[in-house]
């Protein structure tokens, strides 16, 4: 499209030059002939300047520092830099944006002025109506020379990902059941709920991890002894947010609200996050507000599931019970 526009500009310029040529031939005056020479030479300078300027042109983006909650308006800041002396560059940035739960490949375009020696900022404002991961992507910038004879493509990757947090909704006071049946424990975070402080040693039980065996104590006791760590917060609950396609926001709001409520009551919990692509679960331990945010980021990074998640969980963790299901319909104790 840009190249087509260039052609239109070139045609109009050629027509203008032709008119001046006729005037020059008609009058044979220095004025018209010099004007003609200028018109002939100018495009070369324009294209050279455009090529030079495009190499010194870049656009970066920065996300807002504050947390964005659904319903908020926020702004993404584009930093436009033209370090060359060439002014009047017209730069076209094509970008797409969407909520991760509502993919959309529509392309939006913004035309900005690439003035010389300028580091400029503009803000793209967005409004949200549902939680999810907001993505903004732009890969190429098209830079046209001042007279628009040629458009240069500048490789410039922009990727902005902003979590849009769910709003807090009232959660009914229900008695939460404690979880029974430890899933595969792959706690990654050191700040997780299992600390390095050993609370006690106990005999080995089936299912204990090998790395928890206290070898010295086992040797002394002549039986396998297992370390049991101190927990900062007791993680006695397992939350299973079920993010079903088309109804994501309800589950997210309930999960976030319930999480906040539980943390307010000093109740830590674990969250099973479903990965629809691999059909597996991974777990987050939540004992603080930041953990809750992290867990929701993780949830929102995953796409929504087409089917119910609970049967999948039970299939992978048979014998478990006391799972707190967070469905679009509400909170269900199992």
């Amino acid at each position, binding site marked *: 499209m840009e190249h087509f526009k260039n052609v239109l*500009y070139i045609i*109009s310029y050629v027509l*203008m030059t032709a008119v001046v040529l*006729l005037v*020059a*031939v*008609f*009058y*044979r*005056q*220095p*004025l018209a*002939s*010099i*004007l*003609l*020479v*200028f018109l*002939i*030479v100018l495009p070369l300078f324009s294209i050279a300047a455009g090529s030079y300027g495009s190499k010194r042109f870049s656009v970066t983006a920065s996300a807002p520092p504050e947390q964005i909650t659904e319903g908020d*308006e926020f*702004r993404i800041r584009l930093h436009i830099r033209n370090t060359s002396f060439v*002014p*009047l560059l*017209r730069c076209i940035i094509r970008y797409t*944006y*969407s*909520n991760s*739960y*509502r993919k*959309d490949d*529509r*392309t*939006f*375009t*913004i*035309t*900005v*002025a690439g*003035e*010389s020696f*300028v580091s*400029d*900022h*503009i*803000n*793209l*404002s*967005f*409004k*949200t*109506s*549902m939680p*999810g991961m*907001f993505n903004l992507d732009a890969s190429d910038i098209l830079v046209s020379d*001042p*007279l*628009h004879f040629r458009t240069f493509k500048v490789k410039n990757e922009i990727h902005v990902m902003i979590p*849009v947090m769910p709003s807090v909704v009232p959660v009914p006071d229900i008695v939460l059941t404690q979880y029974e049946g430890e899933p595969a424990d792959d706690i990654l975070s050191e700040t997780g709920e299992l600390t390095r402080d050993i609370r006690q040693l106990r005999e080995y039980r089936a299912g204990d991890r090998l790395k928890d065996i206290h070898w010295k104590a086992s040797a002394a006791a002549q039986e396998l002894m297992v370390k049991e760590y101190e927990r900062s917060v007791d993680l006695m609950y397992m939350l299973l947010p079920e993010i079903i396609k088309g109804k994501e*926001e309800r589950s997210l709001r309930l999960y976030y609200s319930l999480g906040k409520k539980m943390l307010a009551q000093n109740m830590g919990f674990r969250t099973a996050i479903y990965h629809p692509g691999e059909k597996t679960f991974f777990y987050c331990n939540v004992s603080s507000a930041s953990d809750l945010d992290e867990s929701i980021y993780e949830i929102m990074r995953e796409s929504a599931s087409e089917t119910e998640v609970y049967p999948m969980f039970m299939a992978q963790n048979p014998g478990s019970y006391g799972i707190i299901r967070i469905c679009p319909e509400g909170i269900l104790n199992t």
Partner: protein
Amino acid sequence: MSGRNTKYLKKEKMLSLQTDPHPGFRGRKELRDRNKELSARGVCEGDIIADKPPHKYIAVLLRGILIFFGAYGTVWGLAGSFGLAYDPVKVFVWILVMAIISASVYYNRATFYIGYITMFISFFVFSVLMYSYINSGFQAFLNEMNQHYVDYFSLPAARVSEEVIADRSLSVPIACIFMGWVYCIMLNVTISSYMNPALTFLVTFIPLQAAFYIDITPSYLCMTMLIMCYASVLVLSRAGYYALPYRYKKYEIYSRRRRRKGADDSYILSARGMLSVFGISVILSLVFFVVSGAVFGDSYSTKYISNRLKNKTDEYVEVLVMNGLTSMFNRYDATGGLAHGRLGGIGSVTPDYETDLIVTYAPETSETVYLRAFVGDKYYVDRFTEDTNVFGEGGYEPFHMTGEPVEMEIENVGADPGYYYLPYHSINAVGDKDGTSYITYVPSHQDVFYETDDVGMLKYSEFVFDNYTYIPESLIPILDETVDKAGMVNDDRTYHGILYSCSRLEQYFAENYRYSLQPGRTPYGRDVVEYFLSSQDRGYCMHYASASTLLLRYIGIPARYCEGYALTANQLAGGELIEDENGERKVRVELSDAMAHAWVEVYIPGYGWIPYEMTPPSFGDDDEIPMNGIMGILSGLFNAATRDEAGADSDLAEGVEAGASTFRKVFDSIEFLIKPLGFTVVAVILLLLLIPFIKNAVMLLKISRMKKNGNYSDALLVRYRSYVKKLSGSKLIGSANVDSTCLAQKLTDALKTLTESGGYDDLSEHLDDISSKAGYVGHTVRRAAFSADNISDSEYRETCLAMKDVLKALRTVRVKKAKTLQKNVETV
């Protein structure tokens, strides 16, 4: 972000939040769309907001200046070119103020409506109050311009317009201010509203053609202003940073265009962008000014070469200057009646058959009675001027007719009231207020006896031969050719001899031409008579009469072109028989405009002026009119010739047919471009050649400044940057983006690769030395780049020396290797 910008942003956001439940989104439809999008996508895009304020006032000011350049440049160009004293200071200030006021109208929506209404009212009031001054100033301008044209074309006379206010020091500046104001309004539309370079160019440049046409170049400074305006408008229109947000209610700096698959937001206002454009256009225009004015100005203004197209248009301009603007609009389809000697432009005649004259008389013969009104004297550019020659004191022709007189009553009901319609040999004519004339005349010249003294007769003959034998020089070739073809040459100047020539011509016309009321228009730039005789094989009475007049004059017979009405036997037969008060029977004939006629009258010594009918009879078989396309006009464009040559050589086909010389002619026509083009090409090549030197000089300047400030680290980094570029350019290393950490290794590898083939014993012992120098360079550069401590002067020097040594060694090895390879090839 500066404090001011932050404030601006906060203010903008605050306002937006206060006025709208959807911050930043306004408009009912917009809100509906947003809500739809929000529910469908969970997110929607809002406004584009710039951190910086738009500085609308700067944009207004700049646009005002552009309008001023256009308006004042044109007024100055016109007034200055024709030497009008127009009080430059006052006009300058007025136009500047009006340009800025006009531009500020586009500040926002409110100013747009209020401003335009106010501006038009004040313009109207000014025009009414100053009408006399404006009109007089305009007439003064026309008079001056006409005078320049008269001088340029060496014309006999020009139209002079009346200046009601004789004091030009008042009328001319006011007219200039008026003109400037009109331009401000027009340019405000073409610049502020549309930023249209083509319209801006047309509006301002076309009026200047009045000066250019007669080789007057307006002041170069004024042209520089105009070029500045054109360049700015051209670039701004392409960049798209020109619009003021009067029509973009919602967005201050960005406009949004919704598409099916997204939206386009375009930056519409950048005061800084406009400023850059303005700056560049100033530079460009100054270069233009210097190059065109100082370098080529003299050499070209003294060397005028005309072209055929211009010479053709000259003829029209001459008519315009002498006869006024209305003469240019005489290209029409006539409805009959008198043409007052104007022959050009009439393509066809369609009579309306309305009665023009009512003639009542008692005819004595069946001969055609010519009621003469207009008598043409000199022929000049498609027109016979009215005969104003006066013979003797009373102006009467010295003939005394002796036949039996007849009385005729002529009532003018629709013919041109400016004339009497008199039959030949009129003796007495009495007119009344109603346009009715009573005329006594002698009905037939065949029976006329002349009773006059010889002296009077001779004097009149002299007078006639002096005044009625003029023909334009440009028509001589075609007249000569036609006279030959018609066989008109006859030395006998008696009654019979002259009638013989006339009859030959009449016969020639009858055999070779046809009567047609739709003969087609004469092509632009060609003479009516010349075209009629050479190319057009048809015509009506006007063509035959005019051509006959000139042909007869060419062979020395005094002749005049006449217009009036012809009363033929056929009309008489169709007339109404009446009886007057005295019981005398008369015929009453109504003559319509279709009876209007043109004929030639011939002077026969002793007989006087005798009408002669040259027009062949009509058979009602009009053919299609031959077309004369625009290509015929354009074909002469590139056929360069000097003014005289072009004038003499009027046959366009000649230039085209001369195939071998066409190229030469085209080349000659663009020869004038070679010098400036050559100059520019040489300048560009020189500039390109000088770029590396300029860059080097800039770098050295930078380094010296850094060294002066004790900043050796930065100086070394600049030198290093240039050094790796040099290495990369010499293909000694792969890329100019080589990291300082691996530079040493790359250099050593390059050396090893070059010396691998052996035979470089003299160098191999230095290899370690060079490698260590490369290592030292890399090390120091790393320090300069990353260490908080500045490197010392001596370190800088040593590193530079090491760089040189390494480069020298690499180049030496490469040259030696190339030589060895060549030797091996030769040996093989």
